[in-house]
């Protein structure tokens, strides 16, 4: 049953717009939630499967957003010594790919530099990195327009040779684009986790010394995880830029990282479904709260819901429910735990 759950969820999400009719506001909320959920899934690859918490994850998201936006908008920047770099606008789809590559590269950089440290130190290196990147985006006005924001970012155009192009302007198209990218990311994480590489990550998380002693290269494994995670966050950032069509240094807000961490940990870190469930709940909770109470109260309830979930299910919703189901079921070994490749 647990193996079917992702498919059921995917089918439900794919059918959701039909049920919603054309309520663009809810569709918008779902798109933004979806983009953040992709971010959460990428964070989960690091936090959930290697145990390393990147509290600067928004840096990769933001780098993706900026690279994608600048690729499709073009720029003209002096890089010192009288040299100028001039870039003519390229299609947004190319921007998406470059965003993935650039974010992945910065993931590599951060991985190489900071996996010499672990735990809380890694947390703080990543926070610092994100802050520095944010301040560069804010202050390098010639390239990023700084606080003046990059506006009129084009929508993503998908083109197939001979079949013409297809610009994703409407909400529905963007919804399916996000769902598609999200599914792809899910598949990537799922295949990684079930593989030899996934076992290496798990080994490092559970007992690093022992993992080293069976020949697992910690730095390389963690760096590869960071690269893939960052690349996925970059993809999410690119989707964000082309969907919202404006970005400014606020895309690097620390609170967005916090939202992603909430989605991962409350949903259940180290599970495939956790970030998706957590993402849907905490992405849509503000939407649900908006009509029923004062703005300040909404935040208070948001915080309380978070606390209550963690008190009831300290390991997150998905593991918590799995344990609950296991207790209910007569079988000693629950299905959910018997197939770690899918569940973990």
């Amino acid at each position, binding site marked *: 049953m647990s193996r079917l759950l992702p498919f059921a*969820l995917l089918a439900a999400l794919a059918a959701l717009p039909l049920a919603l009719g054309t309520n663009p*506001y809810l569709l918008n909320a779902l798109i933004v939630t979806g983009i953040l959920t992709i971010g959460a899934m990428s964070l989960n690859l690091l936090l959930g499967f290697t145990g390393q918490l990147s509290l600067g994850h928004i840096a990769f998201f933001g780098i993706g957003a900026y690279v994608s936006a600048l690729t499709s908008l073009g720029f003209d920047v002096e890089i010192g010594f009288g040299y100028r770099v001039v870039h003519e606008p390229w299609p947004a789809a190319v921007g998406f790919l470059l965003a993935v590559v650039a974010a992945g590269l910065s993931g590599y950089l951060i991985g190489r530099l900071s996996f010499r440290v672990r735990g809380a130190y890694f947390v703080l290196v990543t926070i610092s990195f994100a802050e520095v990147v944010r301040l560069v985006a804010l202050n390098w006005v010639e390239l990023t327009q700084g*606080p*003046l*924001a990059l506006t009129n970012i084009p929508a993503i155009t998908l083109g197939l040779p001979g079949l013409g192009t297809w610009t994703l302007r409407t909400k529905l198209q963007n919804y399916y684009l996000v769902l598609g990218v999200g599914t792809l990311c899910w598949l990537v994480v799922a295949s990684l986790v079930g593989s030899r590489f996934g076992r290496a990550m798990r080994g490092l998380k559970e007992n690093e010394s022992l993992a080293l002693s069976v020949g697992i290269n910690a730095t390389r494994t963690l760096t590869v995880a960071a690269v893939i995670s960052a690349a996925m966050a970059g993809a999410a950032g690119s989707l964000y830029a082309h969907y919202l069509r404006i970005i400014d240094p*606020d895309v690097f807000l620390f609170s967005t990282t916090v939202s992603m961490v909430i989605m991962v940990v409350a949903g259940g870190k180290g599970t495939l479904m956790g970030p998706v469930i957590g993402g849907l709940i905490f992405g*849509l909770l503000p939407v*649900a709260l908006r009509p029923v109470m004062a703005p300040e109260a909404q935040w208070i309830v948001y915080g309380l819901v978070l606390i209550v979930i963690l008190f009831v299910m300290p390991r997150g919703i998905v593991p918590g429910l799995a344990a609950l189901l296991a207790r209910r079921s007569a079988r000693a070994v629950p299905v959910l735990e018997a197939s770690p490749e899918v569940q973990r």
Partner: protein
Amino acid sequence: MPGRFTLTTAILLALATTGARADTIRIGVNEPLTGAFAASGTYVVNGARIAADEINARGGVLGKKLELVVEDNKSNPTEAAAVAEKLITSDKTPVLMGAWGSSLTLAVMPKLMDYEVPMLVETSSSGKITTSGNPFVFRISPPSALEAETFAPMVSKLGMKKVDFLVLNNDFGRGAATDFGKMLKEKGVQIGLTEIMDQGAQDMSAQLAKLKGSDSDTIMITSAVDQLVLLFKQMSALGLKKRVITTGGSQNPDQIIAQAGSAADGTMHLTTFLPWLPEKTPDPKATETFIAEWKKRGFQFAGVTESFRGYDGIRAIAHAIEKAGKAEPAAITKAFWSVDFTGLNGPIRFAKSGPAGKESGQSKPDVYLIEIKDGRVVVPTL
């Protein structure tokens, strides 16, 4: 499973509020009520409410009452865009007001294009808002270039020779430094340092120490009121005594006087409203009524320099709806161009701005120079 449950709940709750009532005209108000700009957004909303109540007391517009649908954009651009989406599609508001800051407003603008719904921008200084070719934008606050232009005649009277800037690191601050710098250069004034401070930064002593060492006679500061209070206190602590002129219209002199005390003495401020001297405003009677109502509702007097824009914004929207003859986005957009009345800070009349064929509207409010002297606001004689 839990995901789907919450999703359903969310959808039901959201749908529960949808569906416009026919007997009212809804106006969407998109302001920051939580987060960094909560104080200002709340002031603007309070001002807007006063205007709506006043109009409704006189019988409303087109025989219908105005209904403000106020939503919190959480001081966050993504949320501002989402809120616009909600107001337009769920609440079916034919016209919006918002979104307080430039980055918030800029985030909303693509949505206006998508749905062809007009928005009155009550606060926001970035030039981009009215120059990027969005014909659904009508702004009543002055962009910094316009503010600089209005200030230009006073420059020589003040005897400014060399000016340093200390500005907020956002569109508001950086835009002011650029536009005022350009104007001052044209006037033959030298430009010295341009120092930057972060939004939310509380200690600017490093920047001030640097400014203290410069040979300029004037420091032009662009920031919001909270930071100005800190700046004046810290300047006095550092013994930094130069002419100070603040720009941007978010200075709120009363709060400065109350909180910075004598440290604010002698500072000058470019402001767009003169609530201290109602008799000098373009429409003294309207100013007095507004201030009286503001006080009656128990709001702090200090808030009026921010809230009058919400008040004027709603009044301008009401005028547009009246002129349009129906509460429909396209008609209102068209009618904005014929709005012409005297607001609390000068005539509200939209001039075309931006690329031809898709111009935005920009009204040109009055700009006043005031000075704080012995804890009171005075208009300096130049």
